[in-house]
């Protein structure tokens, strides 16, 4: 069973603080992972990815950490801004063609 799971449906964080969004997966053969951000009434947009051979990837305020032994990845946003308020999905490719997504975490950054 190939799954990615996001167990926290929502998260609220004060502006300027760190947001940490978590994702667990079941298939140790995934070769990379992705994070997407989605605003209401819009399609998801790609945010950041990480290869399974790395344990960290950073892009500006966004850092993704991968813990392969725990089958866990996390997205850190520092500092959080009100414009970061959105639903965040983790995703992985179970094979050559398609992508599977988690259920999403709704982040609310409070001004």
């Amino acid at each position, binding site marked *: 069973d190939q799954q990615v799971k996001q167990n926290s449906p929502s998260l609220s964080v004060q502006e300027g603080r760190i947001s940490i969004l978590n994702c667990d997966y079941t298939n140790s053969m995934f070769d990379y992972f992705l994070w997407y951000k989605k605003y209401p*009434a819009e*399609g*998801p947009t790609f945010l950041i990815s990480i290869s399974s051979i790395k344990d960290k990837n950073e892009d500006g305020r966004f850092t993704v950490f991968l813990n392969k032994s725990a089958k866990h990845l996390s997205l850190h946003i520092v500092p959080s801004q009100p414009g970061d308020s959105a639903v965040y999905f983790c995703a992985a490719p179970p094979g*050559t063609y*398609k992508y599977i997504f988690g*259920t999403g975490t709704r982040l609310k950054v409070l001004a």
Partner: protein
Amino acid sequence: DVKVTQSSRYLVKRTGEKVFLECVQDMDHENMFWYRQDPGLGLRLIYFSYDVKMKEKGDIPEGYSVSREKKERFSLILESASTNQTSMYLCASSVTKIGTNTEAFFGQGTRLTVV
């Protein structure tokens, strides 16, 4: 920039109607996808296509069919719309992964309401 365009932002259809959702991408991507997004369920794959005239079932294909007659266009068809197909439908495209991180690019979504 990759552009994935869905033909409608909002649609309201009646139960039993045949519904066509159209998607066009302009980056010559081999792969195209249809997902639906529902609260608490995330993005679930309905169908995908890795080449013209090729299609594969995703996780929830029941009640849907697809058509890919041209590389840039992927259509989702609801044969007989039902109220449980009320959802946000998202089309996406990607290149075929060849060992490097590649992402899917999404359209703006179609909010379908079946009454």
